[in-house]
């Protein structure tokens, strides 16, 4: 019999497959992982502490930097929390603009995931394809608010800028383009034998485990749990549109892959309807007091970000700054299941499973 020795291996924080500065210490018995301990905090900036000294409008740029792949949804969860507290009316055009940018953001975010996931697994060209198409959305955002990643676009009561002339038509033109590209992606990757062998049946868990670990987004829906906050607890204008929530059955990396690609399609469907129903004019800012002071009390709101349920818990004492601001970050919560999934897996599967969770470290650490 061959004697094997335990090997302690450090992965990250500067490893490209950890998607940022995330570190994981694994114990290996030969090729097989016996224990995995995630270490985080390398990107902890104390957003929640900083927010206690800032007024609500000043906090918005900080939310951009949490999940910097999906800054629009982060913007929304904060302003939505404050608006819920103050019971504000949002002009319809502003709400449409928010919904359109959030769905565009979902597409962009899933494209980043798709490209980098395949890059992790060893396919170079899909990454280039995904970033080529994501660039169109980034350029649209750049035109709208002058930034490519950290948009600072939404405000309590509406949005900062209305769509520039011709912008909405560009969004409309993007929809058929992207639908065509999705077919191309499927042809290029989704049926690839080698790729399927790497992800099918890997990182499996059942619905009860997913619920116990508080997973959300594609990580929850891959087990067949029908829970998409856009449908389950509708916010914004989502109850006006028709779209489906893709569900998996096996709870493995393959199901998560299929769901995310399908979600891009569904987002495009929402975008198409939103473009048709969008009012042609109107205000983009509602009636908001000059200094935003939500009444004393507390609120918890939640929305469906590309990564799952992002929540915002605000305790207000009636001042212009929050007394306590807590973000429920989906990446942080979803990552908890990782040590459990990794036991008994090989190092190659570590990359597959970690990538499949879809984390953004800015959001894990906050």
């Amino acid at each position, binding site marked *: 019999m061959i004697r094997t020795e335990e090997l302690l291996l450090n992965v990250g924080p500067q490893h490209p497959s950890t*998607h*940022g500065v995330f570190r994981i210490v694994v114990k290996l018995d030969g090729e097989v992982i016996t224990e995995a301990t995630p270490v*985080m*905090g390398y990107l*902890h900036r*104390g957003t*929640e*502490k900083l927010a206690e000294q800032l007024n609500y409008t000043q906090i918005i*740029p900080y939310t*951009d*930097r949490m999940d*910097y*792949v999906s800054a629009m949804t982060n913007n929304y969860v904060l302003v939505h929390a404050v608006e*819920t*507290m103050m019971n504000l*009316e949002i002009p319809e055009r502003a709400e449409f603009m928010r919904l359109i940018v959030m769905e565009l953001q979902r597409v962009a975010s899933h494209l*980043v995931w798709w490209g980098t996931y395949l890059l992790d697994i060893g396919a170079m060209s899909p990454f280039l394809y995904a970033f080529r198409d994501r660039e169109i959305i980034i350029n649209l955002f750049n035109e709208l*608010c*002058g*930034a*490519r*990643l*950290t*948009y*600072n676009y939404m405000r309590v009561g509406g949005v900062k800028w*209305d769509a520039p002339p011709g912008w909405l038509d560009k969004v409309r033109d993007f929809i058929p383009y992207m639908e065509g590209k999705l077919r191309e992606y499927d042809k290029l990757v989704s049926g690839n034998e080698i790729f399927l062998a790497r992800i099918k049946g890997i990182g499996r868990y059942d619905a*009860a485990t997913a*619920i*116990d*670990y*508080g997973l*959300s987004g594609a990580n929850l829906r891959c087990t067949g*749990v029908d*829970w998409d906050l856009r449908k*389950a607890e509708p916010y914004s204008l989502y109850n006006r549109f028709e779209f489906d929530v893709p569900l998996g059955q096996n709870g493995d990396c393959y199901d998560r892959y299929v769901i995310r690609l399908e979600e891009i399609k569904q987002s495009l469907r929402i975008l198409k309807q939103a473009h048709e129903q969008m009012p042609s*004019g*109107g*205000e*983009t800012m509602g*009636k908001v007091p000059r200094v935003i002071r939500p009444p004393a*009390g*507390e*609120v*918890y*709101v*939640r929305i469906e970000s590309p990564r799952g349920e992002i*929540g915002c*818990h605000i*305790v207000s004492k009636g001042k212009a700054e929050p*007394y*306590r601001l*807590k973000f*429920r970050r989906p990446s*942080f*919560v979803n*990552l*908890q*299941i990782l040590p459990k999934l990794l036991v008994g897996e090989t190092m190659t599967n570590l990359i597959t499973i970690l990538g499949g969770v879809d984390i953004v470290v*800015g959001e894990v650490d*906050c």
Partner: protein
Amino acid sequence: MSEEKDEGQKPEEKVKASAESPETPAAAPTSAEETAVSAGSATLEKEPEAAGGSEPPAADLEREAKLKAAAEARAARAAAKEAANAGGAAAPEASADPEREAKLKAAAEARAARAAAKEAANAGGAAAPEAAEPPPPPEPSPKQPQLDAIAQLIRSLVHEEALEDAYINEMSRHMPTIIVKNEHWLKAAERLKQHEELDFAYLRNVSGVDYETHLEVAYHLVHLGSGRELAVKVKADRSDPVVASVTPVWATANWNEREIYDLLGITFTGHPDLRRIMMSDDWVGHPLRKDYEPLDSEV
């Protein structure tokens, strides 16, 4: 993603830029006050048209006017600079310059249009919300029966005195909220998850709050499927904060409790691995406490 660093500065710059922008259109009229009089007649002719032709939405009109004014202002400033460079005789020469005069006229027009649009917007906007304001509903919250049932169950399943308070948080979409006494929390948590009528299998969020008089942990629960929600709060003494860990009940509480331990210093008894998670292991103090003072003031 490494992109974050490259783009990190942008919003600050943008904020600065937007703060400056209102000044830009205003700069033009002051630099050319004398000639504004001659532009006056044109303004009068234009003004009724701008105010009367309210078919285009006020916001668009205002925006357009602003853009126009900004462009004009830039041009006017450039012209003034040129004129100043030309020498002592610059002022009369400049006002004689027909091109410049036209520009100033346009700027004044834009200003007037903007003012008209703003007035129209104010008049329109003020009326609408007043009419839409509903009187505060005096009837009890629709979630009240839900809350009563939950409170009743907890009292009978856990302890007669298990609840400190039960109320509806109307601000948070009528969230049923219960305050569970610290010593009964673990048992209550088990019942909340396992009892078939309660069945809160999904713990969506755990927050810690420092209220200065006491510390508090808030748990947000939801029943997937029906969407029933419940907020549970547990208070802890500030000098020796201890709360029972619910990690054995909901696995998701694990890192959430570690984060609260790290940032607020609440000890969760029964937690399998209570270590700091965000700050480094040798960090002194708990940053989210209201009286927190950094050990090294330069950090």
